[in-house]
């Protein structure tokens, strides 16, 4: 991996999830943008290959010519990752995933989230475990949003999830990685890709997640809510790559006291 990072093309540093391989380690959501043009431009600037979408009722009785998100984000170009956002029960989450699979012609990669509380949007972990098991048994490839609990992360991996995605902080909070030692513990024990999902506020937060050894970062609000979403998408693209390279390069240990960079010998004063 380190050799790949040193080569001319950092894009050779790919990551795998199930049978799929990706170059970009930034995954982005499509919510909260001003319009589909801004969505498309921000996602292009992010360099993301995997983009999340939500599944909602079609507006009956509206203009049949109304543009559709997937007209702007072609499933031929992007790996579409339908989410179960807004689901508070395992049953609703499973139902949403089945509709998504039908919508996307049998595409079976999903982002599972079962929420437990409207104020924090923290996951309902027991319900998440239940839904994950049902979905894996039903042939889905499950990327799962969860708490930053290392034991639960391992359980979800053991259930057959293709990726485990602990939160950095509450969804949309922009607080950054609140519990780096838990994320580190999850990363070090993982046999599947670990992506930080939710809570990133700015580029340095994404870099921190990557420096901890995460395989990638998934975000939406940090980009869509920025004053200039397209510029922030570009910043996040670079931050994720920078954090990845720093992780591969191996940072120096933290020390309390100074260590001079210039030689002590040979001074003439």
């Amino acid at each position, binding site marked *: 991996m380190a050799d790949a990072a040193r080569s001319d093309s950092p894009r050779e540093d790919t990551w795998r999830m199930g049978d799929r391989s990706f170059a970009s380690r930034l995954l982005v959501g499509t919510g909260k943008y001003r319009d589909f043009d801004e969505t498309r431009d921000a996602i292009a600037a992010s360099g993301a290959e995997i983009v*999340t979408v*939500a599944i909602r009722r*079609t507006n*009956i009785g509206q203009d049949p010519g109304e543009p559709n998100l997937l007209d702007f984000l072609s499933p031929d170009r992007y790996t579409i990752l*339908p*989410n179960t*956002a807004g689901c508070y029960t395992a049953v609703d989450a499973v139902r949403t995933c089945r509709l998504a699979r039908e*919508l996307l012609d049998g595409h079976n990669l999903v982002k599972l989230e079962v929420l437990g509380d409207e104020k924090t949007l923290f996951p309902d972990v027991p319900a998440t475990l239940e839904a994950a098991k049902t979905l894996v048994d039903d042939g889905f490839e499950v990327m799962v949003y969860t708490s930053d609990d290392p034991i639960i992360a391992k359980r979800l991996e053991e259930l057959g999830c293709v990726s485990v995605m602990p939160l950095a902080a509450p969804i949309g909070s922009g607080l950054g990685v609140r519990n780096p030692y838990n994320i580190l513990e999850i990363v070090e024990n993982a046999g599947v890709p670990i992506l930080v999902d939710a809570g990133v506020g700015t580029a340095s937060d994404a870099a921190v997640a990557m420096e901890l050894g995460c395989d990638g970062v998934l975000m*939406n609000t940090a980009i*869509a809510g920025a004053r200039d979403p397209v510029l922030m998408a570009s910043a996040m693209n670079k931050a994720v790559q920078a954090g990845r390279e720093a992780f591969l390069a191996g940072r120096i240990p933290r020390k309390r006291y100074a260590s001079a960079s210039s030689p002590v010998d040979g001074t003439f004063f």
Partner: protein
Amino acid sequence: MQVTVNGESTELADGCTALDLVRQLGLEGRRFAMEVNGEILSRSAHETHRLTPGDRVEVVHAVGGG
């Protein structure tokens, strides 16, 4: 007959198929997924599946989300 489509009571001709409903909604050729009474109704079955009074139909699509 009355069926419920996305929570709204909707009048359909008796013996109407799922495809007839899709046409009535102006959704033919669009990307959507359909569920009838909580079960997925695959695209290949729209033409032959006859709806019955009281059916609960959901028609969904992809929207922006994180």
